[in-house]
């Protein structure tokens, strides 16, 4: 395996991690339950 392959794999892994984080951070309005809320609302 070449160095370039390792760099590309690392970049792809980073891309996947960012994508998963984006999915987890559900977008929407505030539901009032801020303690357990993961929404990207205006309060954050």
């Amino acid at each position, binding site marked *: 395996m070449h160095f*370039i*392959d390792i760099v*590309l794999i690392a970049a792809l892994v980073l*891309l996947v991690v960012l*994508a998963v984080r984006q999915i987890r951070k559900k*977008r929407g309005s*505030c539901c*009032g339950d801020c303690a357990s809320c993961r929404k990207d609302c*205006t309060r954050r």
Partner: protein
Amino acid sequence: MARSGRPVLFIRAVQDLEKTKKALEKFFPGTIIELILFRMPQSLCGGKRTHSRIGGKIVTLKELEIGKPAVIRAVGGEGALRQHFLDMGILPGTETTVVKYAPMGDPLEIRLHGYELTLRLDDAARIEVEPTCAKKVPEQSEANRAKAAHPGFGEGGKFHPKGSGDPLPDGTMLTFALVGNQNSGKTTLFNQLTGAHQHVGNFPGVTVDRKDGAILGHDDTSITDLPGIYSMSPYSSEELVSRDFVLREKPKAIINIVDATNIERNLYLTMQLLEMDIPVVVALNMMDEMTGNGGAVDVNRMESMLGVPVVPISAAKRQGIDELIDHAIHIAHFREKPMRQDFCDGNTQGAVHRCLHAVIHLIEDHAAEAGLPVRFAASKAIEGDTLILEQLQLDENELEMLEHITIQMEKERGLDRSAAMADMRFAYIMKVCGDCVVKPQINREHLRSQKIDHLLTGKYTAIPIFIAVMGLVFFLTFNVIGGTLQEWLALGIDKLKEVTDAALNAANVNPAIHGLIVDGLFEGVGSVLSFLPVIVTMFFFLSLLEDSGYIARVAFVMDKLLRKLGLSGRSIVPMLIGFGCTVPAVMASRTLPSTRDRKMTILLTPFMSCTAKLPIYAFFVDAFFSRYKALVMVGIYLLGIVTGILIAFLYKKTLFRGEAVPFVMELPNYRLPSARNVAQLLWEKAKDFLQRAFSVILIATLVVWFLQSFDFRFNIVTQSGDSILAMLAGVLVPLFKPLGLGDWRIVTSLLCGFMAKESVVSTLEVLFGAQGGVAAAMQPAAAAVLLAFSLLYTPCVAAVASVRREMGHRWALYVVVWQCVIAWIVALLVRLCCMAAGMA
């Protein structure tokens, strides 16, 4: 028995003397009947309900001629709808005019209290009016009035000496509720206060959920933008959200936004908010429009009459916002409650006043126990608000006493309980407006709207214009603007793919990684990305329709047609939004006042093809039907609409029997869409699409690439038919065989479409890439069947989640299964048609 010895019979509200005489002669044969028309004293017939008024014939609002002024004499109906009528200002004694009828003859538009309202003919038939001569409006002038001193409410050093008062402890979070009528500019003000970019529109009910944020520069504050309400008597579910927030979460202060151009109706809610015993600041919005038309408000006098700070503002132009923030923070911090709550004195003979105060004494302990403001609870108890009565938990004696007090008030006041309470509030509003408001003689925005409405809601022009507008939107989206931009972007992405491919080859990258990047990422995500211009263009036009105020007119025009399907005209709003995205469409259904209408509308929105499905259509139409591009595109949308109509008929006969709720809606003035607002919306939608492309679609593409490149032993496969994906999807293949789609790759793409519709295209590109693309591997008939299935099968996971939030788990599951069943049946029919036409 009268003094003359002849028997006397009193009959109330006789309208046709001859008919009544004949009926009585039939009932008392051989008796000489003599009818004398009496005008009953006000104390007996109920004040304004003098049916046999000299010179005026009582007719129903339905029978009133267009443009003829009349005075409302009685408001019929019952329950929440009647209460809503009263809250909207349809009260005995109010002047009204029929403006016009919808193109199909129903509903009608009336003007009262200086604003336009739409009603169905059946509901208008319940309102009795007496035609009158047009009253000359006395000329008001600001100069005629003595200057009122500034009461200084909400200001340190005036209302109480600086440094004194009853402040909250330092560091307490100051919570505010932003409350006001629908379409009064709450969200515009919220955006100005918090720096947020929430979407605003020009039709009643854009905001359907609460939104929170901190006031800019004041981190210890939290302001909540609530859905618009007309009164504290909830008529629809989003109104209940607002009322519950104020009652249960007890904000430290309320910012009550009042549309100054429609001040009478807006102040009705203010009257009720003042009863809540929470500090209130009134923000008089759209003052620029009011003064621009020659109107004026004596703010100092209004402030002293309402007993709360009043701040003139223009939310759109950011005028008066800083002053509003100062006042709001001051009243919240110093807990300055309204100075005045008693608006019932001066009422006819004081009947309502006495009744209210008697009930206040009666329920005082219960209200304190339930945590309800006592005056608010008393007025709601008198109106018979069941939710409040349940919370009060009055015992049998108290309930009886409440009923007796109320009946006595009704007798003395001559109006039923709800009308008497509404009349009491409006009487004070009229006094406030009479003393403080100089109404503009000419409202330029309204005149302009009237002229536009002649065309857009005209009897013969409304429907052709609606069809032309929608046709133009689709034509510009798919052909002229969106289509062209999409081709350019696709060319750019292809070029980038070629460059990357060459670079990876030159660097001698591992074949598996090379395949993942070129055949996975570029084929999958790249193909979806190219549709960004089409989606943005579609939202651009939808936002223009929304912001201009045209969507409210569409609801007015289409009500009669939708009623035949068992829906109300208001259902058209979520459905049109559904052409953009099903998620906000499902949420927009909250503005519908009945559960039945709401559920039915939610279940029908998936039939309005969303923009996420556009890549699928564009992809297949380009590949198979490029000669008839526009025709096939319009055909797909029409297929969705026609299927939706048929399903609506089915629902009307089975799941949702009965009639749609009455159509009561305010028609806003037309406004020029704000460039900033439209640009903001487009940016939000583009950002949302890009985030989806690089999150859900990227992951789906990578998973699909992995599953189709490896077998169960994690060896790279040479034939994709040996892959993990082929094995898994193969289980469902028999279900799709009758449709001619018995290929595991198509089944896989449809499964991926559940995550995000755009994934259908990306998956197909990845899976068919090696075989020279989808166009080489499929027949046009199979493409047509696949298009029909994609159009109708289950909405994406985000849409199903919003259905679950609105209707629960069962209905969400029902939507998934039912949409798949419908899609399967329609796809089969399309296949049979293709076979009959010799295509398959």
